[in-house]
C-alpha cells in the first residue's frame, strides 16, 4: 500500500535520484482524481467525528436550557414533573434503576456467556460449534421490541413461580421480598437484559478464547491437566482482559436498552428497597414513556437525562475499547 503511484519520466534509469527522494516528490503532485478521492474518504471520516461532537454539543445545549429552569436538584430530586410550574425533575430514580438493572443483567449474563464461549471453543463437538454460534448470532439479530413483547407477555407471567420461591427463601434479606404485584420489576428487566446482552459478550469472549496460544493448552495437557484445569490455568488467565472488555460492551448495551425495558417495567418514580416489587425506571425507558405527552420543555428535560446516559455509555464503551485495543488482533465491533 505504501507503493506510491510514481510515474517517472526519466528516460535513463541511471539519472534517477535515490528512491526515497522521488517518492516524496511524486506524491506531492498526485493526480486530481487521487486528490478528490482522498478528500472524499477523509471527509467521511471527519464527518463521523463531527457527528459525535455534534451529538455532545446539541444534547448539552438543549439540556442546559432545561436544567436552568429546574426548580428541583437535577441529580437528587425524586420526581419528574415537567408540566407543572415551577418544574421539578431529577435523575436519581433513573440512575438507580439503570444501574441496578444493569448489574443484575451483568451478574446473570457474564458467567453464562463465558460458559457458552468456553462451550463453543473447548467443549462442543466441532460439527456442532458452527451451528451453535449461528444460533447465538440469531439471538443478537432479534429486534429489541420483540424481546420486549416476549418479555411482557411470555416471560412476566412465567416468573410468578420464581418470585414466590425467592420471596419464600430469601425474602428476609429485604432485597428479594415480594408483595405479590405483577413481576414487572427491575429484576425482570435485569433478566431480560441479560438475555439480550448474552450474544455480544459470548461473541467477543469466544474471539478471545480462540486466540489462546495452542502451545499453552498443549503444555498443560502434557502435564496431565484435565480439561477444566487447562481452562483454569491457560485459557482464563489469557482471556481475562478480553472477557472484562466484552462484559463492558454488554454493559453499554444494557445501560442504553429502551424498548424492552419500556414494555416490561411498570414504572414509578421512586426507589423500591426490593428488586422484586414493580416500580423504578431507567434513563432510556423514562424517555420513551414520557416522550409522547412532553411539551417542548419536557422534551428538553428528557434530553438532559439522555445526555447523562450518553456520557455514561461513552465512558463505559471507551474504557472497553481501550482494553480491547491493547490487543489489536480482535475487536468486538462486528459482534
Amino acid at each position: 500500500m505504501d507503493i506510491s503511484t510514481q510515474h517517472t519520466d526519466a528516460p535513463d534509469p541511471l539519472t534517477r535520484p535515490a528512491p526515497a527522494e522521488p517518492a516524496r516528490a511524486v506524491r506531492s503532485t498526485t493526480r486530481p482524481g487521487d486528490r478528490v478521492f482522498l478528500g472524499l474518504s477523509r471527509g467521511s471520516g471527519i464527518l463521523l467525528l463531527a457527528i459525535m461532537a455534534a451529538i455532545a454539543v446539541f444534547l448539552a445545549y438543549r439540556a442546559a436550557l432545561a436544567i436552568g429552569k429546574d426548580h428541583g436538584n437535577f441529580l437528587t430530586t425524586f420526581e419528574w414533573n415537567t408540566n407543572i410550574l415551577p418544574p421539578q425533575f431529577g435523575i436519581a430514580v433513573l440512575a438507580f434503576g439503570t444501574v441496578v438493572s444493569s448489574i443484575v443483567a451483568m451478574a446473570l449474563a457474564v458467567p453464562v456467556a463465558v460458559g457458552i464461549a468456553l462451550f463453543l471453543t473447548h467443549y462442543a463437538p466441532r460439527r456442532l460449534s458452527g451451528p451453535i454460534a449461528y444460533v447465538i448470532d440469531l439471538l443478537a439479530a432479534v429486534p429489541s421490541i420483540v424481546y420486549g413483547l416476549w418479555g411482557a407477555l411470555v416471560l412476566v407471567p412465567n416468573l410468578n413461580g420464581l418470585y414466590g420461591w425467592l420471596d419464600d427463601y430469601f425474602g428476609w434479606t429485604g432485597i428479594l421480598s415480594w408483595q405479590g404485584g405483577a413481576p414487572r420489576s427491575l429484576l425482570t428487566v435485569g433478566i431480560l437484559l441479560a438475555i439480550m446482552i448474552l450474544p455480544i459478550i459470548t461473541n467477543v469472549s469466544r474471539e478471545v478464547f480462540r486466540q489462546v496460544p495452542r502451545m499453552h493448552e498443549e503444555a498443560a495437557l502434557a502435564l496431565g491437566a484435565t480439561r477444566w484445569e487447562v481452562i483454569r490455568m491457560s485459557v482464563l488467565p489469557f482471556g481475562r482482559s478480553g472477557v472484562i472488555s466484552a462484559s463492558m460492551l454488554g454493559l453499554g448495551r444494557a445501560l442504553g436498552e429502551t424498548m424492552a425495558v419500556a414494555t416490561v417495567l411498570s414504572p414509578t418514580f421512586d426507589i423500591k428497597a426490593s428488586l422484586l416489587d414493580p416500580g423504578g425506571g431507567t434513563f432510556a425507558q423514562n424517555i420513551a414513556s414520557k416522550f409522547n405527552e412532553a411539551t417542548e420543555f419536557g422534551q428538553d428535560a428528557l434530553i438532559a437525562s439522555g445526555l447523562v446516559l450518553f456520557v455514561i455509555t461513552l465512558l463505559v464503551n471507551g474504557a472497553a475499547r481501550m482494553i480491547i485495543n491493547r490487543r489489536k488482533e480482535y475487536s468486538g465491533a462486528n459482534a
Partner: protein
Amino acid sequence: MTTPAATHRRRSTLRGASLPKWFPLAVVAGSVLLAVAIGLGAGLRSKVQWGLIAALLAVAGTYVVAARVEGRRQARDRIATSLIWVCFLLAVVPLASLIWATVKRGAKVLDGYFLSHSMAGVADTQPGGGIYHALLGTLEQVGLATLIAVPVGVLTAIYLVEYGRGRLAKAVTFFVDVMTGIPSIVAGLFVLSFWILVLKMGYSGFAGSLALAILMMPVVVRSTEEMLKLVPNELREASLALGVPKWRTILKVVLPTSIGGIATGVMLAVARITGETAPVLLLVWGTNFINTNPFTDPQASLPLYIYQQYANSSGYGAAYDRAWAAALTLIAFVMILNLVARGIARWKAPKTGR
C-alpha cells in the same frame, strides 16, 4: 495393532479407572426422575424448584461418584463440563421460547389482508386492520438511512484502510468503535434536538432515517474495514505497478474483490436498524394512515407499530394479536436478511491466497 482387550488393560493401568461414556447421561436422567418424585411427593408446585432439585442432585451425584472412581480432579472436571453444558442450554431456552411464542401467536392473524391494509378507521380493540402503512414506512426510512450511511461508511473504511495513518485515522477508528455503542435512544434525542427543536423541522420519516443512519454508519465502517483488510496486497501492488492511479485501483480492484463481504456487512447493518424502535418513536411519531412521503408528516413503522399495539391495548385482544403478527413479520424480515447476507458472505468470500 493391538486387540481391544489389550488396549483396555493398558489404558486402565496408565490412566486409572474411568467412568463409562454413558455416565453423565445416566446421572442426569436419574436425578431428573428423583427430582420429579421428590417434587410430587412433597407437593412442590413450582417447576423451577423441580429443576433446581434435579440440577443439585445431578451435580452432587456426579461429584460423589466421580470422586470415588476417578479422583477429585476428574470429578471437578466433570462438574465444570456439566456447568458449561447448562450455560449453553440456558441460552437456547429463551430463544426457542421467543421464536415459538412469536410464530404461534403471530400466525393467527398474519395473512394477505393483514399485509395489504392499514389501520385507518380500526380501533385498538377491534379486530382487522393491518401493517401495510407500517411496512411502507419502515422500508422508506430504512432505505433512506441506507442511502445516507453506506457511502459515508464505505468511504470512511476506505480512508482507514487505504490512506489512514497518523492521528486522524486513530481518532476515527476509536470513535467509530465507541459510536457502535451509542444507545439508539440517544441517537434519536440528538436528531430531535438538532433537526426538530433547533431547525424546527416536523416529525417525519426522514428525521427517523437520520437517526437510523447514525446508528448504521459505524457498523458499516467496521465490517467494510474488515473486508478491505482481507484483500491481498499483491492485487493492489500489481495494479499500481501497471501505473493505475490509486483511486482507480481502489474502485476497480479493491472494491470489486471485497464487494461480497461489504454487501454482507451492509445487509447485517440494515437488519439491525430495521428493528430499532426508540429513535422512530421519538422522530417519526406514528400514524394509522398510509403516508407514502417520508419527508413530510408522521409516518408509521413496523417496530413502532408493535409497540403501539402493545401499549394501547390494556388487556388481551385484537391489538395483541396484531402486535404478535407484526413481530413475526419483523423477525422473518430480519432473519431472511441475515440468512441472505451470510449466504452472500460464503459465496463471495475473498480468496486470501493462503
